[in-house]
């Protein structure tokens, strides 16, 4: 049994690697390949032309910066707001808590396109259509939904007695938050930041609907290049789109706090 389990596990691992890495490797080959035609498995000529064009294309660089700002701000807002809502919702008595949880789940469950149409009404009325702030708010609505659901789960298993103990020892609610609750949720906060970042980073429908073409992100640029048939540039932008998530996941996975939920 043992001997047959090892090859099947290896096969499974190979299949998983192929499943996740093949699309990324296609982007790498396409962005560096000059000519890549059937039946060749790899490009026959290699070039950095697409990358040079990307660097010299101010529009793309601007889109990259826009995406970075949007994603960082969305991640920040989503982790802070999600943390606070999750913390408060976890203290609401049942069945009211279930309603709060259901409400938090709506932006997660609703397709971004449907949500965007609804949000567009408010954003336009607020005069924020076609602005970075408008797009950021729209991205944040979805991201906060995700992080709230995440933090409700985290606080459901959090031992609130540590907070009571801190208060009883003389700490005000603010000091308790700063010295006890936040340090004990370092990892969750970092993960929520990453979650919010990624929700915004790859967001296309909301950016198009709320940005109204005036806000161009990396993700919307990829769509433009694909539609225009500029496969090499689309591959470069697609690769850049894939990179931050992978890098951030590695950073969060390897370096964030040792503590998860406070129970001793």
């Amino acid at each position, binding site marked *: 049994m043992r001997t047959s389990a090892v090859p099947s596990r290896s096969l499974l691992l190979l299949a998983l690697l192929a499943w996740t890495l093949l699309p990324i490797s296609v982007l790498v080959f396409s962005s560096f390949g000059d000519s890549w035609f059937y039946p060749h498995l790899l490009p026959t000529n290699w070039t950095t032309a697409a990358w040079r064009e990307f660097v010299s294309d101010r529009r793309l660089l601007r889109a990259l910066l826009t995406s970075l700002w949007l994603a960082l701000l969305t991640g920040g807002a989503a982790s802070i707001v999600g943390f606070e809502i999750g913390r408060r919702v976890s203290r609401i008595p049942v069945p009211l808590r279930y309603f709060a949880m259901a409400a938090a789940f709506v932006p997660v469950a609703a397709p971004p396109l449907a949500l965007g149409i609804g949000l567009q009404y408010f954003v336009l009325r607020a005069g924020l259509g076609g602005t970075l702030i408008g797009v950021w708010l729209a991205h944040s609505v979805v991201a906060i939904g995700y992080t709230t659901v995440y933090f409700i789960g985290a606080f459901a298993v959090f031992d609130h007695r540590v907070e009571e103990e801190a208060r009883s020892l003389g700490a005000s609610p603010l000091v308790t938050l700063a*010295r006890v609750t936040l340090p004990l949720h370092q990892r969750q906060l970092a993960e929520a930041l990453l979650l919010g970042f990624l929700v915004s980073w790859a967001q296309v429908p909301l950016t198009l609907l709320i940005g109204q073409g005036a806000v161009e992100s990396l993700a919307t640029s990829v769509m433009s290049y694909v539609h225009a048939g500029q496969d090499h540039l689309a591959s470069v932008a697609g690769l850049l789109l894939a990179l931050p998530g992978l890098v951030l996941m590695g950073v969060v996975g390897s370096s964030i706090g040792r503590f998860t939920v406070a129970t001793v």
Partner: protein
Amino acid sequence: MTPRVEVESLAAPFGKSAGLSDISFSVGAGELLVLLGPSGAGKTTLLKTVAGFVTATSGHVRIAERDVTGLPPEKRDAVYLHQSPVLFPHLSVTENVAFPLRVRRVDDNRRRERVAELLAAMQIPELAGRMPRTLSGGQRNRVSLARALAADPMVLLLDEPFSGLDPGLREDVREAIRIVQRTSAPATVVVTHDLDDAAVLADRIGVMINGRLCQIGNPREVLTRPSSQEIATLVGFTNTFAARADGEGNVETAIGKVRVSGGEATGPGTVMFRTDGGRLTRDGEFRGRVIAITTRPGSVTVTLHTAVGDLELAAEYLRLPSPGDEVEFTLHPEHLIFFPAS
């Protein structure tokens, strides 16, 4: 003695029950009050109300003559410790003990000195650099108490500190509480289910039933003179039988006339006593048949079938009868309490 903590006509909600009702007591500096009561009696709610985690619906809590009823927990000068020690898992033992000092912005040198003093007082200086997850249950208890002392509280509220502890650890925690009493003499209120803990530690015992403080007094008084049948059951009066009092300290029962305490009443009622309220003897006034012998560490009880029902009496290891034997026994009037029927 001026009370450190004074609770007056306190009422507070808990769960779906009626909640705390008309609770009044006070505890002085260095005094230790043990609260006994069945589960759901409101003992923890009472501690949490004094600590400020449950809002009182009426009445007052005064600490050092200051009315703290409406104040948040951090402004009460009362430290509440949960049933199992809750340390801050991201802080070392030193940082845990220093927490209340840091909150009060005590300067670095004084903080270090005080932490060292407290760890030494609790006999755990070697744990200073350890993280909570590496500590044993007993060590956590001591760190938790050291940290409570660092807050220099007027009142210390301990919620079932002996719950789930093995006998060795239980004695360890008792000793730690004695150290706390010697070190800074706070007014201490301890909730426990255990009569031994109550008898060993308490200066006074309060008995709570259904959200009310039904009796409060010194351990001897509460443990030997319970004021109601419910309290008697709670403090170990396991034997009970029906009787009719004649108003002269005697009661008529199915086994004959028995002298009792509290027999000034007349009419029907119930006699209750502990296992040590009677004794097997060769020339006893009453007779019964042995139906069971129960051996526990340090004691043995014999269950007798008698005309008033089954009775449990303490016995000596060396003079044990056998199940089925007919035996004689006497009852000690000073240990028997008569409760008139209401």
